[in-house]
C-alpha cells in the first residue's frame, strides 16, 4: 500500500501560507526594513546599513537584559520540566480523581496573562497580600518592589505556578499513552521503579517533552506581560528582560531603527535555540540507531 499523491493538494495549503505571510512574514520584513534605516518621521528615512546592528550589539544594557533572560529561561526549564514530570507521575491514572485533578491543574492556564500579574502583586503585597503578609509577620522582610532577589523569587514562583500545569498535562498525556503491557513486562523482567522510569516512561515521553521544552523556552524567552505588570522591569533593572527593554527603546524613546535591529537579533536567538533544543531532544536516545 502507498499514499496516493495529488498535486492539487498544494492548493489546500494556500490559506495557511497567506495567513502566515500576513501574520509573520510581512511584519518581519517591515521590522527588517526599519532596522537598516534611520527614521525621522513619515517619509524621512535614510539608509544606514548595519549601523544599528553594530550599535545594538554593543549596547551594554541589552547584553545584561539578554543574560538575565537566559538565566530566567534556563531556570524555568530546569524547574518546570522535572517538576511537571514528577507531578504527572504522581497523578492518578483512572477514577473520578483524574478529571478533578486535571481541572484544578488547568486553572492557572485559563487566567489572562495580565491578570496573573495583578493577582501576584496583590498576593505578595506586605500589607494585604496573603504571601507577603505571612512572610513579613514571620519576620522575613519580603518586598518585590524593593529587593531584586524578592522580585526574581516572585516572578519565578508566578511563572512556575502559571506554566508547570502545561508541562504536567503534556507529560500526563505521554504517560497515559504507554500501553499497560510495558509495565507488565517490566515487572516480569524484575525492573525497579527507577528503571521503569528510565527505560520506559522517559523514552516514551520524549516526544511530548520535546514539545514542552520548546514551548516553555520560546514562551519564557519572550516573557513580557507578567514582569511588566508585576515589576515594570524593576527594581532598578533587575527584571528588565529584552522584551521590556525593547518596548522602552521602541515606544518610549521612539528609536525605531535600533529597536528593529534588536528585534531581528532577538528573533534569530529564539529561532536558533529552538532549533538546537529540537535537534538535541530528537537525537537523545536515538544515536546509533540503524
Amino acid at each position, binding site marked *: 500500500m502507498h499514499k496516493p499523491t495529488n498535486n492539487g493538494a498544494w492548493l489546500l495549503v494556500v490559506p495557511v501560507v497567506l495567513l502566515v505571510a500576513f501574520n509573520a512574514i510581512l511584519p518581519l520584513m517591515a521590522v527588517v526594513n526599519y532596522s537598516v534605516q534611520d527614521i525621522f518621521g513619515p517619509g524621512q528615512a535614510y539608509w544606514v546599513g548595519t549601523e544599528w546592528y553594530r550599535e545594538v550589539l554593543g549596547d551594554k544594557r541589552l547584553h545584561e537584559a539578554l543574560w538575565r533572560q537566559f538565566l530566567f529561561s534556563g531556570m524555568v526549564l530546569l524547574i518546570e520540566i522535572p517538576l511537571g514530570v514528577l507531578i504527572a507521575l504522581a497523578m492518578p491514572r483512572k477514577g473520578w480523581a483524574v478529571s478533578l485533578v486535571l481541572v484544578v491543574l488547568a486553572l492557572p492556564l485559563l487566567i489572562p496573562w495580565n491578570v496573573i500579574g495583578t493577582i501576584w502583586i496583590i498576593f505578595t503585597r506586605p500589607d494585604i497580600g496573603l504571601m507577603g503578609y505571612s512572610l513579613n509577620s514571620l519576620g522575613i522582610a519580603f518586598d518585590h518592589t524593593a529587593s531584586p532577589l524578592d522580585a526574581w523569587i516572585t516572578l519565578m514562583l508566578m511563572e512556575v505556578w502559571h506554566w508547570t500545569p502545561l508541562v504536567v498535562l503534556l507529560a500526563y498525556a505521554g504517560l497515559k499513552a504507554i*500501553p499497560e*503491557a*510495558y509495565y*507488565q*513486562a517490566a*515487572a*516480569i*523482567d*524484575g*525492573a*525497579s521503579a527507577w*528503571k521503569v522510569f528510565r*527505560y*520506559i516512561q522517559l*523514552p*516514551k515521553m520524549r516526544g511530548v517533552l520535546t514539545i514542552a521544552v520548546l514551548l516553555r523556552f520560546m514562551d519564557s524567552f519572550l516573557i513580557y506581560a507578567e514582569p511588566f505588570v508585576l515589576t515594570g522591569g524593576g527594581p532598578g533593572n533587575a527584571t528588565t528582560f529584552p522584551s521590556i527593554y525593547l518596548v522602552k527603546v521602541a515606544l518610549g524613546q521612539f528609536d525605531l531603527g535600533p529597536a528593529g535591529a534588536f528585534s531581528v537579533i532577538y528573533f534569530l536567538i529564539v529561532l536558533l535555540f529552538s532549533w538546537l533544543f529540537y535537534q538535541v531532544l530528537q537525537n537523545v*536516545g*536515538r544515536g*546509533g*540507531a*540503524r
Partner: protein
Amino acid sequence: MAGITFEQVAHSYERHPRGERDFALKTLDTTFEDGGAYALLGPSGCGKTTLLNIVSGLLRPTRGRVLYDGRDVTRLSPAQRNIAQVFQFPVIYDTMTVEENLAFPLRNRGLPAAAIARRVAEVAEMLELESLLKQRAAGLTADQKQKVSLGRGLVRVDVAAILLDEPLTVIDPQLKWLLRRKLKEVHARYNHTFVYVTHDQNEALTFADRVVVMYDGRIVQVGAPQDLFERPRHRFVGYFIGSPGMNFLPCHLAGDGLGIDGTEVVLGGAWFAEAAARPRARLELGIRPEHLQLATASEAGTVPAKVERVEDLGNYKLVTAMLGPHRIFAKVPEGREIGGDTVHLRFPPARTRLYADDELLV
C-alpha cells in the same frame, strides 16, 4: 520450569457475583504438565485471556488456587512467579540495544557479567539475532521485536513458564510461519512450559501439542490437535476446528435407530443404545465434510439429499446439499463429477459422532 495446576479456580469481574452467569471463568480443575506446549483457544469472550492472566498473576482468581509444581502461587505477583510473557504488541526497551534488552532481566537480578554475556549469546544464536545485537531495538521490524521479547524470557534459566498472548498478531503473513517454526524449535530445545493464547485455530493447532479449547468460560476439551479434529468432545469444538466445521444434524430415537429431524431418514447403528440411555437429551449427529461419503446411486445405508451447489475449490469440490431442512457440506476429491441434483450420502459409523446436549456420546 513448572507444571501448573488449577484447583477449583473461578473468576468473576463483578464485585459480588450472584450466579454462574457472572463468572467470566467458570470453575476449573486441570493441570498443565511441566514442559508442555499448551494453546488456549477460543473466540473472544471465552475466558482465555482471563485464564492467562490468572496463570501469570496479573489477576487473582475470585475462587480457587493456582499451584506451580505443587507450590501455591495464587497470591504472588508475576515477577514473584518467575514467568515470562510475550504480548500481542511487541514490548521492547526502545533506547536499549538488542543485547541490552536481552540482558536486562538478568542485570536486574544481579547476575555476574560473564554469565549474562554467555546466556545472551546463547539465546541470540537460538533466535538468529546475533547480527542485530548491537542495534538499537527501536529500529527493528515487528517480527524481530517479537523475537527480542521472547528472548528476554528465554535468557532466564529458571523461568517457570513462558506465556504468549496472541504473539503473531502484528507479524506479516509471509513471516508468520518462520516465527511459528522458531517457537516450536525453542520449545523443543528448552522444554519450558509454554502457554499460548489465540483465537486462531490454525495457530493453536500448529503450535501446541495440547490444545485447550475454551467456550463460554469453560474448558470444553483439552487434547492433541489430531484428537480435536477427529473426536471433538463438544459440539463447539467440532464447529470451531476445521473449515468448514463439522455438520450437525438434529435427530431423535426412532424404532431401533436414529431419525434425522424433519426427514424420513432413519440411520441404524451402534449409536442407538447410547442415545436410548439419554431419552431427554437434545441429540445431534456430527460428521465432518471430509468424512461424509458420496455414493453414485441409492444403495443400502445411503441417504438421498438435494444438491444446492457444487464449488470447485481447487484441490477438492465442496458440495452443499439439503437433507430435508438441514444444510450439509461434503468435500469430494477434485476429479469427481457430481451429476444430477441428488446425491446419496453415506455416514461411515467410525467417523460419525453422536452428541447429547452438545457433549460427545459416541
